[in-house]
């Protein structure tokens, strides 16, 4: 298996070209990332005062979905002890309550998107709670999922006609227009968007190879893409060790 990083955006969204693999392997990785890589999220909320318009359970639900920066070392559950952090908040209206106003006991655990509105308060409305964040896995609740991963067969554009390449560059609404020197070489490495596909008269110009995949990992913010891949390795190793142990028992 060969992995090549194609692009990385500011928010961490990374595209890879993975060659020499198959859908079943990639799907295993996808499911492990979504279900088994642990992150922190608010788990229990003790609401002391809530006179806002949202019910306590709605509020707790919203808090649970807030994305918290997670320290990878704390993630893995050791000796059945889950790592927990308390976040407290006390505000009085009128104001919009933002996630960044929560005070965390651990400076390493904080809401990534500080401007996430939790609730709006009017005059004389108060909100006070203690929320406990804990590590967990995506299979328990989707709020623990660190990323979205998806893949497709890597589309190789194969255009030999310069006029056709020019036409596609003209029809592409997004990226291809940015290719300043519209050379064949550039268009052949250009990532396909629906606009480009519309510009192609037939599918003969798109080639795929059996073992080459375009993989995208879009992290939500708890962990960086690098950390997710690192954790993916640990998680799959642990699972394989467990399997080996069980098989030995049967023998």
């Amino acid at each position, binding site marked *: 298996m060969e992995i090549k990083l194609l692009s990385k*955006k500011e*928010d961490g969204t990374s595209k890879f070209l993975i060659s020499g693999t198959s859908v079943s392997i990639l799907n295993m990785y996808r499911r492990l990332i979504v279900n088994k890589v642990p992150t922190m999220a608010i788990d229990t909320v003790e609401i002391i005062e809530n*006179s*806002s*318009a*949202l*019910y306590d359970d*709605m509020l707790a639900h*919203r808090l649970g*979905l*807030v*994305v918290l920066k997670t320290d990878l070392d704390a993630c893995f559950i050791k000796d059945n002890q889950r790592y927990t952090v308390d976040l407290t908040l006390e505000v009085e209206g009128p104001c919009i309550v933002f*996630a960044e106003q929560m005070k965390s006991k651990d400076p390493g655990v904080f809401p*990534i*998107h*500080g*401007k*996430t*509105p939790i*609730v*709006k*308060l*009017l005059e004389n*409305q108060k909100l006070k709670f203690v929320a406990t964040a804990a590590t967990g896995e995506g299979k328990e609740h*989707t*709020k623990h*999922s660190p990323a*979205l991963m998806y893949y497709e067969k890597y589309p190789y554009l194969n255009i030999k006609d310069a006029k056709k390449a020019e036409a596609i560059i003209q029809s592409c609404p997004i990226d291809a227009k940015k290719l300043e020197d519209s050379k064949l070489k550039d268009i052949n490495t250009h990532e396909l968007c629906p606009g480009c596909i519309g510009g192609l008269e037939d599918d003969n110009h798109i080639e795929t190879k059996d073992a080459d995949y375009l993989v995208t990992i*879009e992290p*939500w*913010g708890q962990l960086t893409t690098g950390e997710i891949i690192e954790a993916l390795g640990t998680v799959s190793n642990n699972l394989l060790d467990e399997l080996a142990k069980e098989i030995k028992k049967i023998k």
Partner: protein
Amino acid sequence: MTQSLELKGKNPTGRKMIIPIRCMSCNKPIAHLWEDFKERSANGETKKEVMDDLDLKRYCCRAQFMGHVDLLDEVARFKRG
């Protein structure tokens, strides 16, 4: 009768009074983009431009923004119960 009225009051308003923290379909956190979106689209930019700029590329996330109405300000004026 009273029970059905209560349920009527709870569910529809509770769902969409305030922008959801995450996209209901793909799980992307979107709530922090809402204020920006609201301000910019009120200042004359088209919704498409703003959403493209905020990197909302899937139609599930875009639907959350297109269909959302901030009702919390209205609802908050009345007594909860």
